[in-house]
């Protein structure tokens, strides 16, 4: 079982020490658990979606997978090897695109290839191929600010795929886009996934997005983040279905996840409120804050 796992997350913890309160005497740092005992196995070529309320540590988990931070405990294995740091075997797509504004679309896609040490000619050809794959042929020489949000995210996806990572990590990649562009990109992503056969870990707070994209959906709790349940989404071919979102099975699954998330979302909101109150002291501002939320 573990041998065929592409990525295994085993008993992963992550805590941050946060200084609470503004007064010096209160400022004793205490650890805040972002993640607690995360366990998840992702299979080769699988599309795994992680869904959770905001502030549940989804992005922390992604940083750990990317190797940008180290877990406080437990381990993350890629093909059986512990992740020791950032590497080109994992590609990340961020919500805010993170394209280099001084580079053209083509040069942005070439960036990872350059880091990989691919020669100039081959770099250009590969980048060109992936720009075609994401459907932006003809836009190679545009700068990011000359592209729409959806186009920028397509280029960011092309950039991450171009250096041929084992796993594609996506951190709420479509959250900043308008609804129509988002739906287009979701089905585009499924097409690209089918074409490339990559393992994808996709983080979102959108339930519908999770059900539409994921082969499996892992639901996280509010902070400290844990995996509450992993649900199988048994649709065979999503793209052949005309209007998958109104399929009764789709609606049922969405409702199931909604039920699982409902309590977590309200708990996360409570946590956020008390954090805001803490940060601004107790006096007048607490009454104000209370009034605003109530």
């Amino acid at each position: 079982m573990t041998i065929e796992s592409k990525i295994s997350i085993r008993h992963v913890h992550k805590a941050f020490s946060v200084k609470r309160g503004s007064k010096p005497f209160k400022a004793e740092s205490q650890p805040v658990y972002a993640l607690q005992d995360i366990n998840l196995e992702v299979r080769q070529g699988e599309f795994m979606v992680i869904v959770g309320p905001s502030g549940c540590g989804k992005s922390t988990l992604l940083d750990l997978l990317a190797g940008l931070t180290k877990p406080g405990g437990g381990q993350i294995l890629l093909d059986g090897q512990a992740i020791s740091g950032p590497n080109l075997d994992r590609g990340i797509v961020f919500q805010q695109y993170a394209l280099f504004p001084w580079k053209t679309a083509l040069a942005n896609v070439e960036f990872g290839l350059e880091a990989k040490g691919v020669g100039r000619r081959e770099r250009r050809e590969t980048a060109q191929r992936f720009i075609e794959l994401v459907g932006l042929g003809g836009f190679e020489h545009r700068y990011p600010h000359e592209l729409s949000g959806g186009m920028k995210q397509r280029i960011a996806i092309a950039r991450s795929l171009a250096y041929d990572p084992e796993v594609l990590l996506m951190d709420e990649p479509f959250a900043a886009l308008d609804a129509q562009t988002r739906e287009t990109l979701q089905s585009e992503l499924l097409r690209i996934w089918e074409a490339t056969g990559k393992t994808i870990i996709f983080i979102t707070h959108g339930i519908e997005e999770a059900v539409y994209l994921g082969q499996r959906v892992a639901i996280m709790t509010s902070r400290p983040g844990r995996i509450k349940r992993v649900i199988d989404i048994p649709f065979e071919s999503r793209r052949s279905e005309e209007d998958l979102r109104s399929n009764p099975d789709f609606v049922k699954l969405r409702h199931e996840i909604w039920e699982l998330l409902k309590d977590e979302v309200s708990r996360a909101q409570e946590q956020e409120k008390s954090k805001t109150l803490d940060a601004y002291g107790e006096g007048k501002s607490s009454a104000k804050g209370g009034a605003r939320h109530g």
Partner: protein
Amino acid sequence: MAESNVAKTLILQGRSDGGTLERATAKARRAFRNSVAILLFLAAWEIAPRTGIVNVTFFPPFSEVVSAWWGLLRDGDLQDHLAASLTRSISGFLLANLIAIPLGLAIGWWKTAADYLNPFLELMRNTAALAILPVFILLLGLGETSKIAIVLYASLFPLLLNTISGVKNVDPLLVKSARSMGLSSISLFRKVIVPAALPTMFVGIRQAGASSILVLVAAEMVGATSGLGYLIQYAQFSFLIPQMYAGIITISVLGIIVNYLLLALERRLTGWRQTYGE
């Protein structure tokens, strides 16, 4: 069929002619908008002394200033003084760049250093360079060294502060994205930090360019035997009023040229953000 094609071509030609005509008028209109205030000012300068509104001795008409300027140019005086000034400001400016840009990149990269040093650098920048000119003269004498040093001082701090803030304010997401691709610290610096900081660095370069001329002219008025500042001062003492104005005009034009050249360089190096427009 053939006829309709010809007709189409004619229409297209007509249209493109209209386009060039329109573009020409747009250009002319812009040239007028840009120069009308200057032309009015020069006209007032010409008319006011001639009609006796201002004293002609202290305020000679513009045409007289121009002919004085031409005279200075023919004698070769103007070139000599201009060359002396340019040598000083360019050496000071370039030295400041050589020191401040690497230093600023290093300080900005090392955030703790930046936090400690920034207040001090702000203090130094806000100490008017001319206020410490006497110190430079005491330490370095009246020769070229003190003048290059004052230009260096005046250019250093805008360069340093802007380079530091450019590096410090690089979008952390870009750094994160580059790091996730396994870039080493050196390539991260070279391929992400420096290009991302370049627009802010250029703000400093332009400020330094402007102040390198401003400060130098004033320094040359205090103890120098050549340079545009000296020319103006000398002309005033010798009551060569048109020559004095000729010197002043030369400095204004020089300032505009320097700013224009630096802008052109900036456009070349940071052309990717040109469409944001200024």
